[in-house]
């Protein structure tokens, strides 16, 4: 709250500085503003930037990291009673001290004797430190703001190139914004690698990548850290692959054929109707597809297979019939089919772009030789567009592998090594969600394994994307 007030005050202060700077710029020319190098507003902005930006950055930094600073300072000079506690107990102790200082709810740990006095002591200290940090940062901010004014204000003179200076600040802002994208990637890689590295200390990499038994629940019991083969991710990879395969078997033909039809046959009117409709299909949130899969497609498929089973029962395929009669809602086929529906517009719009990029002269040449339209498509357009279409399909595969909500809602949780579409399987993303929702301890391999899975997922999708984007790029250059 205090931070917000300080920031608002700072904003008003720099507005005032702007007005003052502008007025001074006009004043120093003694009534001839045309003598100025830049427009008067630039002098005002220059002063306002010096007054506002460094101070605002300082206050924001303290607001973001003040809590950590406070926690660190609180641990300096621990009382003897606290030193005897184990490291996790100390963490709880300090958290409680800070919670009490803040009027929050501490944990239910009971402290007595020396610990109780230590707690009260530390709570009081925490309050002191936090107000020191808060007021200190605002004080420092005020000093910075004033210093900024003292730096900028005297520089205002007709020869001063205020516009260039202000544009220098703007250029800095540009670079900071562009670097955000790099920072995001760095953040993703750093967080995934760091947490996975902690996981791989408990479970060796080869065991994770090659093991064939996945049962992370075992590890929750303290004496069974990484029970033999419990973190083998191969069944998850197989499950992900199976569902991806089913999805592609639905999405690739339908998406491709609709793209061909839309770009080669459809009248402009059909295109203008069908394309927006397909965009709606693409815009439906995945949680909606998940709901559809879990409550409509799942029961439908199950009753269909159960019905076939009932028809076959007692005949020569009795074994198959018995199997069909016990298939579950969560079979891989359901999640895969619905994911395929989700991917249709994705495949179709990407391939549509690529097919449209094939030069008309190729088509005209082929048609002039007497080929029918379908022959032109099959023998000329598709071969020319093939690399691009492969890239589109690879991007679709990457989407299918990373898709989460449909499989979380419609696929199962049992990790099984099977390629039977009627069995329930689980995927990498489903396991990440199950491992990380609900209560978590951040040092158990169970939670950390989610980051191991995340790293694998990121690596695989990144590879697919890089290959696909490279193909697209290379291919585009061919006809430009």
């Amino acid at each position, binding site marked *: 709250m205090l931070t917000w007030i300080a920031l608002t005050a700072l904003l008003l202060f720099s507005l005032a500085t702007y007005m003052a700077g502008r007025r001074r710029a006009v004043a120093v020319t003694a009534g001839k503003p045309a003598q100025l190098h830049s427009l008067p507003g630039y002098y005002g902005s220059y002063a306002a930037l010096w007054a506002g930006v460094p101070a605002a950055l300082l206050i924001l930094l303290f607001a973001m990291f003040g809590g950590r600073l406070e926690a660190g300072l609180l641990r300096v000079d621990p009382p003897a009673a606290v030193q005897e506690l184990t490291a996790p107990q100390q963490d709880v102790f300090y958290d409680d001290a800070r919670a009490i200082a803040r009027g929050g709810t501490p944990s239910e740990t009971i402290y007595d004797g020396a610990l109780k006095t230590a707690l009260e002591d530390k709570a009081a200290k925490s309050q002191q430190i936090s107000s020191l940090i808060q007021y200190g940062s605002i004080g420092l901010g005020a000093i910075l703001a004033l210093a900024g004014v003292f730096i900028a204000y005297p520089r205002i003179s007709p020869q001063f190139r205020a516009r260039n200076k202000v544009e220098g600040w703007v250029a800095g802002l540009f670079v900071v914004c562009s670097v955000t994208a790099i920072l995001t990637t760095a953040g993703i890689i750093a967080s995934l690698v760091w947490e996975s590295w902690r996981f791989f200390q408990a479970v060796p990499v080869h065991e994770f990548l090659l093991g064939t038994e996945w049962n992370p629940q075992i590890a929750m019991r303290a004496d069974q850290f990484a029970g033999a083969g419990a973190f083998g991710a191969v069944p998850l990879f197989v499950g992900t692959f199976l569902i991806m395969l089913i999805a592609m078997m639905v999405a690739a033909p339908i998406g491709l054929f609709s793209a061909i039809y839309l770009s080669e046959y459809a009248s402009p009117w059909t295109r203008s109707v069908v394309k927006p409709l397909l965009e709606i299909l693409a815009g439906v949130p995945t*949680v909606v597809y998940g709901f559809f899969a879990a409550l409509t497609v799942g029961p439908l498929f199950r009753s269909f297979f159960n019905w076939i089973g009932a028809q076959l029962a007692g005949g020569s395929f009795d074994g198959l019939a018995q199997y069909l009669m016990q298939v579950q809602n969560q079979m891989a086929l359901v999640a895969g089919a619905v994911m395929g529906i989700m991917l249709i517009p994705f495949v179709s719009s990407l391939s549509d772009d690529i097919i449209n990029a094939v030069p008309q002269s190729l088509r005209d040449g082929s048609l002039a030789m007497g080929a029918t339209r379908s022959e032109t498509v099959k023998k000329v357009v598709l071969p020319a567009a093939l690399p691009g279409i492969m890239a589109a399909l690879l991007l679709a595969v*990457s989407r299918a592998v990373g898709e*989460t909500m449909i499989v979380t809602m419609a696929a199962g949780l049992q990790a099984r090594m099977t390629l039977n579409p009627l069995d329930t399987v689980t995927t990498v993303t489903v396991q990440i969600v199950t491992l990380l929702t609900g209560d978590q301890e951040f040092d158990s391999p169970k939670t950390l394994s989610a980051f191991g899975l*995340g790293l694998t997922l990121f690596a695989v999708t990144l590879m697919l994307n890089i290959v696909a984007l490279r193909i697209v790029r290379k291919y585009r250059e061919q006809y430009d």
Partner: protein
Amino acid sequence: MTDAALTPSANSLRQTVEARLKKRHAQEMRFRLYGRLAIVIALSFLAILLGRIVTQGYSTFIDYQITVPVHLDASKIDKADPTGANYDMLVANSVLAKLGETDDEFGNKSGKVLEIMSNDLGFQLLKMVREDPSLIGKTVTVTGPVKSDAALYFKDQIKRATPEDERKLDNQQLDWMDKLKASGAVTSGFNTGFLTRSDSTEPEQAGVLGAIVGSLMMLLVTATLAIPIGVLAATYLEEFAPKNRWTDLIEVNINNLAAVPSIVYGLLGLAVFINWMAVPRSSPLVGGLVLALMSLPTVIIATRSALKAVPPSIREAALGVGASRTQTVFHHVLPLAMPGVMTGAILSLAHALGETAPLLMIGMVSFVPGVPEGFTGAATVLPVQVFIWENASERGFHERTAAAIIVLLVFMIVMNLAAILLRRRFERRW
């Protein structure tokens, strides 16, 4: 040349060509048919998906309210401590009186009545008595929803034809409900409660207000971060950046980020924002931060293509009359590209509105029975509310899940329409 002049061999050639042509045309027809079929299949999936959700969800917007006069028996309510009384039982007894039944000594009948009407009525009574203790001893009228199972019976989704032990309500309860409806005590109307209440453990009292507010707050955070940063980054890359390895790297990087699975952004948010920077879990702030990072690449890509569409002559004219490059961009190029930029931004926000997976990672699956208290308070958002309700076991929640999806889709359609209108209204062809 006439046919008669043809030699026999040419004739047979003609026949083979015609036969082959026929085959080729048949092939052509088949190929075209496959294309049509693919489109019909895709569109029918869309129709089935939307139709199914509407048929499952529309009934939520009808609700059944029961109105009963309740005598606030002074002997059952302690004036000093009105919270202690069993208001549900008072309501149940009034309903029984209305039905002309008397409770047996074990309270079986009143127990059954409590299974068909919401405990919201009891809460209302408690609230009334608390505000005005003088009501004790008088008779007041309360109106509240019936329990979701009862509403499902009224909506004909629980059928009398089903054997009694396979449905939740027994024949006596069904008889009572018919009687109540016939007497006018139960009335149906538009379910405003669904839009004005927040999540609840009782399906008939659960609504989407908290989720809508949470979604809007989160989108506000996303928009204030992703749009300025994305637009500035795109402007830099498109208008200022020198072509070198660094900018190439940034470009490849942005294209790859756009295709990173959303759940990975959730992992990033969990590790960086929650564990490292200690942003409160499941708050709109942390959700908005994660979604901002996620939509940043799409905003950048959309802005770049909008900037590319502005012809170079505009820039040259501005530079020619003495504007600096920064002035050229901010005074001329960006304003002209704005419709395209805003269209892209709205579309990526619409996408962020429907995103669920990364939010599960940052703890948004908790039960939040109210409107979020602020940007750092616990919140839930529409797609996550769908996910939570879908997991609930009671049948009443399934209907509400579909209704919540309808609300979500309405929001998305509105945003998409806004984008389309913006594009139609302001787009300039050069």
